[in-house]
């Protein structure tokens, strides 16, 4: 019960906190910038945004899709955030996602198990595979001093080709397709009954629950366990941690491993809930790079990541509705880019907000960090 109160207190903290205000303000400014571009290009920004919002919130279907699209982003965002918290830049989420999806598909297709076992097993196998994959980058850093940014960038591409290589095998590839066999029904986390409500084609699945539970676990690990304590200590000050008896190298590997597991969970949930297969990849799908953005919008905090993933997923999903009036899809990226840009320039926002509050006579205290 105290645990819950603690969590609730943190939630309230987060919601009332300065960063959130700035984030919201960034979102508004980002949307305004997008509006300017829309207007310059000759579209009616209000109509375009109306379509976007109706797209994401106007119907149970839209809300459901938004959640479905946001689910993997919560997990990839958590992965980036977790690594950031421990002083590592995990730019390899993309590859870890691919590995997680691949491993889960293998487990989902080849294993014959009752659903109650199959689902957790497939999820875990995806997470572990991706965890090992990422911890390899951690190992290279710990053992040879290879910068994790290079290692993970290289591993992204290796993962992509590994996925395609796996699909060269006839036992795995579905004949006359560019995809693998489908996972067994017992490994699916689809919520079929909900489809009657939100629409038959919406891939509603338990992934969101898994993602939220994992977000809480990540938060808990970071702030309430000895592991999190060590990882954060190493993230902030490697030398002091070493002096304090913490095994820094082991922590780098563990941290990358956990970050990888989170990306792997994203891949697993995507497979079990939505795609049910993996396909030959011609290019990066972007779950990982979007995860970086999600993490940053969410201020690298697990709770923030959940909200920002939903926002990101929502804009991405709802934004496509703007095509109805001929707005090209790139606008979505421009809007997202602007939001991130304003979030980055929080100092600018502080200045604007301070001026505004001075004018309105409130004179709020606006110190961030």
């Amino acid at each position, binding site marked *: 019960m105290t645990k819950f109160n603690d969590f609730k207190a943190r939630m309230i903290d987060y919601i009332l906190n300065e960063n959130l205000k700035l984030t919201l303000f960034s979102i508004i400014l980002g949307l305004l910038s997008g509006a300017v571009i829309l207007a310059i290009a000759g579209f009616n920004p209000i109509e375009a945004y109306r379509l976007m919002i109706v797209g994401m919130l106007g119907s149970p279907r839209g809300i459901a899709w938004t959640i479905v699209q946001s689910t993997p982003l919560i997990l990839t965002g958590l992965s980036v955030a977790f690594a950031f918290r421990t002083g590592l830049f995990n730019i390899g989420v993309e590859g870890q996602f691919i590995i997680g999806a691949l491993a889960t598909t293998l487990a989902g297709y080849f294993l014959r198990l009752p659903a109650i076992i199959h689902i957790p097993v497939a999820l875990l196998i995806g997470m572990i595979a991706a965890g090992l994959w990422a911890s390899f980058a951690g190992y290279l850093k710990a053992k040879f001093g290879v910068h994790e*940014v*290079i290692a993970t960038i290289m591993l992204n591409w290796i993962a992509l080709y590994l996925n395609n290589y796996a699909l060269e095998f006839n036992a795995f590839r579905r004949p006359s397709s560019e995809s693998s066999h489908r996972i067994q029904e017992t490994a699916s986390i689809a919520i079929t009954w909900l489809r009657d409500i939100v629409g038959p084609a919406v891939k509603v699945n338990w992934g969101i629950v898994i993602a939220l539970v994992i977000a809480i676990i990540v938060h808990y690990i970071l702030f309430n366990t000895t592991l999190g304590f060590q990882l954060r200590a190493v993230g902030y000050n490697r030398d002091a941690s070493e002096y304090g008896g913490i095994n820094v190298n082991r922590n780098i590997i563990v941290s990358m491993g956990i970050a990888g597991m989170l990306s792997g969970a994203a891949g697993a949930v995507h497979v079990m809930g939505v795609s049910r297969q993996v396909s030959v990849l011609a290019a*990066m799908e972007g779950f990982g790079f979007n995860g970086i953005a999600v993490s940053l919008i969410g201020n690298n905090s697990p709770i923030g990541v959940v909200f920002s993933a939903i926002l990101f997923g929502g804009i991405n999903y709802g934004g496509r509705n703007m095509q109805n009036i001929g707005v090209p899809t*790139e*606008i979505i*990226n421009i809007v997202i*880019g602007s939001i991130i840009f304003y979030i980055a320039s929080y100092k600018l926002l502080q200045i604007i907000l301070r001026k505004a509050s001075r004018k309105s006579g409130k004179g709020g205290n606006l110190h961030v960090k």
Partner: protein
Amino acid sequence: MLNNIALIISITLMYSTPLIYAALGGVISEKSGVVNIGLEGMMTIGAFAGAATGALTGNPWLAFLVAGLSGGIFGLLHAIASVTFHANQVVSGIAINFLAPGLALFISRRIFNGATMTPLIPLENKMPLPFSNIFRSLHNQGRFGNVFARNSIVDLIFNQYVTVYIAFILVAILWFLLYKTKFGLRIRAVGEHPKAADTLGVNVYGLRYFCVIASGVLAGLGGASLSLAIVSTFRATLVSGQGFIALAAVIFGKWKPQGALAACLLFGLATGLRIYLGGSAVGLDVSQNLLSMLPYVITLVVLVGFVGKAVAPASVGLPYEKSDK
């Protein structure tokens, strides 16, 4: 065999060139203490602006210039965020990776009737091959046998687009700038210890602005070296990840222009090998997917085996805040 080697070298140069520009951009920015993860986006906008200008005006040099400028504009954006407003530099860079490609496609659709691909530039309006005529005339003189013939070893290696030579010259210039001039001394000081530089009256913000904008210009040129020389058009997928490879090359090359050059060449070479080995003429019976991993695996192996720990400029990634204004 020699011809094959020459061909591999020429493919190496081709693949490396855009990376060299962008990596140099990364070097100068990070030397001054600003991480530039937006290289990818800056390359993309440069590739687009170059190809579009080239297609519209037919003037490759103007196109090259515009590409640099457009990269520079995004550099400026990055500088405003990360220098003036003390943004988290990674965040700002990521923003650019969303904004720049988005804008490139958006503008492309506006000016080319909805097309996400720019019109092909005629051969004669691409960046020039400066030695092409010399080689041809030398060859025509006949005194040199077939040494200068098309696709001879000499031709394959040395008859490159001018962008290749410019890239190499830029490496030398940047090296000179950073390590021989007072400007370079100050840039490096700002990247290592901005406060120390500040207390000596060195203009930390000014230098960082310069370096980050230059970084954008270089990345933009790198994009244009793709769209104005290697090919002659822009597509959304043209850059696809090369900015990140360049970023890796910066670190791989230990934040030095010559190091980044070596890293880019290594990557290009690995790609060249992959292409060479993948040809049916070699008769290697290996999955293309495994072969495609080669450049990335080689990079990792070299890093582990030969390069060792790299030390970044001490203040890279940290916004410099004057304690008081």
